[in-house]
């Protein structure tokens, strides 16, 4: 079943329902996953949603990384299952070492919440195939710890290998190195994104519907890989 996409709920997740709604809007079947379950049901892809997890004690995503559900998600991701981490989900993917680097406190120390212009830098991932390279979109950005950092060698490698998925356009909103808003792994199946496409899939509730292609992309990718 290629349209079953799991959404994990951690204690403190806020955006799991919007992620499920975005999957439904794209034509998929959202499957609710619970952080405390060790078994991953039959899903073709997984979204780690935004919000918080386990109080984000220690560091954002640091305890969620060790949640029972994560063992199978990490194993399946290493086998090529598409995984999208949004905001706190991005932090969890970095803590899990599925993605390089880390996310730290915004350089200006303020929580930020605004509609953000973002440039899609690569369509060569499971989650961005339905965009066009260089496309600029507007989706909400809301975080306190969204500053992407990695050492220069890692940043150079990400840019050289085309693994920067999205960059901030205009003023850098949180001090992210090289204005990075999202990255992918070498295989292109795991994507971490700081801004929130799941809040921009419906003109009634979002600033745009620019976020929807992330969710149609994965369905397209899953069909293509059958």
């Amino acid at each position: 079943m290629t349209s079953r996409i799991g959404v994990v709920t951690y204690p403190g997740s806020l955006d799991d329902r919007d992620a499920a709604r975005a999957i439904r809007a794209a034509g998929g079947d959202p499957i609710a996953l619970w952080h405390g379950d060790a078994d991953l049901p039959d899903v073709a892809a997984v979204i780690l949603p935004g919000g918080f997890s386990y109080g984000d004690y220690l560091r954002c995503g640091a305890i969620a990384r060790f949640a029972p559900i994560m063992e199978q998600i990490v194993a399946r991701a290493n086998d090529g299952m598409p995984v999208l981490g949004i905001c706190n989900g991005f932090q969890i993917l970095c803590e899990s070492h599925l993605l390089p680097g880390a996310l730290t406190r915004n350089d200006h120390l303020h929580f930020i919440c605004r509609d953000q212009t973002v440039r899609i830098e690569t369509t060569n991932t499971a989650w961005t195939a339905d965009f066009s390279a260089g496309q600029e979109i507007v989706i909400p950005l809301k975080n306190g710890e969204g500053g992407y950092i990695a050492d220069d060698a890692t940043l150079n490698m990400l840019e050289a290998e085309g693994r920067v998925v999205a960059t901030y356009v205009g003023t850098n909103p949180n001090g992210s190195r090289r204005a990075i808003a999202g990255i992918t792994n070498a295989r292109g199946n795991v994507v971490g994104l700081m801004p929130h496409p799941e809040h921009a899939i419906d003109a009634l509730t979002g600033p745009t519907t620019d976020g929807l292609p992330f969710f149609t992309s994965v369905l397209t990718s899953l069909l293509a890989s059958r």
Partner: protein
Amino acid sequence: MSETRVVVEVMLKPEILDPQGRAVKGAFARLGFEGVADIRQGKRFELTIEGELTADRMAALETLAGTLLCNPVIEDYRIVSVEGAA
């Protein structure tokens, strides 16, 4: 039962910007304390461990310090003290 107290400190690596430490440093200046060149904010964990802290358990503790207590991409940990060991 014997107990061992272990203190672990976690600090951001020197090359990582510490906006919280910078804000605290700003407060020092506002409160009239001059001459603070730098402030770095870290975390301190005080563990009370029941039973004997064998070499194996100490190694496991070091592993957790390097994976759970700190993120080695941005932080270093240091075992500051181990007290009460047999």
